[in-house]
């Protein structure tokens, strides 16, 4: 493997402890809630925070290891970094911003500017070469930042929300370009993102960081199938419950029991897709084994569909059509009956 890091960083009250391996050519997406430590991780890998403990090794070369008193300065790490807030140099034009990296690595002025123009062109920014960053729109600035990081020909790519400010069209095309570039990119790459679509399109593996710790990792399919925290479940649009299994019975913390179709024992997670939760205005008959009466907490409208957040005893979301919402007369606080088939509850060990 090519990037091997065990990052322990302390920032005031915040502690980050993340172990991470990324192979050459592999792309790992880091996801997590705001303030989880994603940016801190990127900064530590780039050498902008020094480790309290652990190590960062790139291609077998130790970049940071406090126990061995090794610390390689950021400028010698060959990390291409895209910062969450771009950090473009206000006194340089877009072209000079992109040429800065190559120039710093000893490329001749003419070559560096040639390379910069090529990258700007690739990013669809040829027309802005002579502008200062204060003349750029948010999305343009982000693309310049991306071009600037890529133009150095880095050994390791660290992208902190590289597409957050892009418009939908640019996003798809930059995502695709980035994907192609990452395919061609020989080194390891870490992408921080909030968008599971980006993660799906770009990354081979996902790393979920919450509150300074890795709470889950694996391929998109693995993570989607078996979320282990509320954040991941929400990210994937799933309901996550935690409880104890006794055979095909699932007992939640508040004592409510659900019927499942999986034989299990001990502490488990249970996952229910919102569209598998049916809502009724009166007690339904029929096959579903789990039926209960509850109240509506919130309703989130999503175009022609709506997400209905249910209250106690089983706090989950149901996804129904907008028509159903009006037919059932749903509003916040309204009473409603919910049901889930036993076969639609997936159960796995906690």
């Amino acid at each position, binding site marked *: 493997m090519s990037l091997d890091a065990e990052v322990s960083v302390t920032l005031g009250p915040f502690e980050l402890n993340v172990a991470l391996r990324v192979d050459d050519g592999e792309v790992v997406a880091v996801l997590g809630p705001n303030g989880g430590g994603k940016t801190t991780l990127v900064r530590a890998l780039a050498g902008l925070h020094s480790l309290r403990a652990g190590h960062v090794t790139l291609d077998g070369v130790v970049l940071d290891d406090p126990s061995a008193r090794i610390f390689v*300065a950021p400028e010698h790490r060959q990390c291409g970094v895209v910062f969450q807030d771009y*950090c473009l*140099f206000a006194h340089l034009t877009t072209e000079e911003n992109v040429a800065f990296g190559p120039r*710093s690595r000893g490329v001749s002025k003419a070559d560096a500017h040639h390379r910069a123009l090529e990258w700007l062109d690739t990013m669809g920014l040829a027309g802005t070469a002579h502008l200062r960053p204060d003349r750029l729109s948010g999305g343009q600035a982000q693309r310049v930042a991306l071009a600037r990081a890529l133009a*150095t020909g880095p050994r390791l790519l660290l992208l902190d929300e590289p597409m957050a400010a892009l418009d939908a069209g640019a996003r798809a095309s930059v995502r695709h370009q980035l994907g192609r570039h990452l395919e061609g990119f020989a080194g390891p790459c870490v992408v921080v993102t909030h968008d599971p679509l980006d993660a799906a399109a770009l990354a081979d593996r996902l790393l979920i960081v919450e509150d300074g710790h890795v709470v889950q990792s694996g391929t998109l399919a693995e993570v989607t199938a078996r979320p282990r925290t509320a954040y991941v479940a929400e990210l994937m649009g799933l309901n996550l419950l935690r409880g104890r299994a006794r055979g095909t019975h699932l007992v939640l913390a508040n004592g409510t029991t659900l019927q499942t179709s999986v034989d299990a024992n001990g502490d488990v997670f249970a996952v229910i897709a919102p569209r598998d939760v049916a809502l009724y205005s009166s007690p339904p008959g029929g096959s579903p084994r789990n039926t209960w009466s509850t109240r509506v907490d919130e309703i989130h409208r999503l175009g022609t569909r709506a997400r209905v957040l249910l209250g106690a005893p089983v706090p989950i979301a149901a996804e129904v059509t907008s028509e159903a919402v009006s037919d059932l007369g749903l509003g916040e606080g309204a009473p409603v009956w919910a049901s889930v088939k036993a076969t639609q509850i997936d159960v796995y060990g906690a």
Partner: protein
Amino acid sequence: MSIQRRPPLAVVAIATATVAFLAVPLVGLLAKVSWSSLWGDLTSPVATAALGLSLVCSLWTVVISLAFGVPLAWVLARFDFPGRSLVRALATLPMVLPPVVGGVALLLAFGRNGILGRPLFDVFGVQLTFSTAGAVMAETFVAMPFLIITVEAALRTVDPRFEEAAATLGAGRWKVFRRVTLPTIAPSLVAGSALTWARALGEFGATVTFAGNIQGRTQTLPLAVYVALEGNEQVAIALSLALLAVSLVILVSLRGWWLGAIRS
């Protein structure tokens, strides 16, 4: 275009009063000039020698202050070390010292019998008093603190994230400093240099005490003005105006040019 509003009247009034306060005395000087003898006064060998020496010494002062003061300002702004505020205060004190006492202090340090001056003379035969180098030294002693303080203050307002971004792009510390930090503080760098230069140009007490008042060697323009004041006030005023005119030209033109040069 972003909206450009007119400044509030009260502010304009205060600003105008301030300009008037600073400008009226200069007008008074202009009114005193005897224009008929002006050319002769200014082109006398004493005057031209003094003006030339003033420019040379003050420019050297700026160069030395930049070369030595900027690193000190950087260390003061960026690194926490025990005694930092003491060092910062130390760097400020020469500004406070009455210049003549500053000159005495310099004599005690760098005169031929001074703490460092004696070994310097005994070992290397270097004598700073009564030399142009001594005049530069006196001006630097008095004026460099202005650069240090201004630049340090500016460095504190620079957002470190831009420097970090530059580092990840492969720029070493020197390159980061030159290509990111300096351009960012360019206005303050120019301002600090202007202050230093101006202070050096007007320096009198420390120079006359430490370096002496020797025509062509250490007699800078303020010293020549002092000598002229002893005899002929007209000449003194003419010389002062020459100093002002030169400063005006240099300050106005340098500013634009310098700001441009650093940014490109």
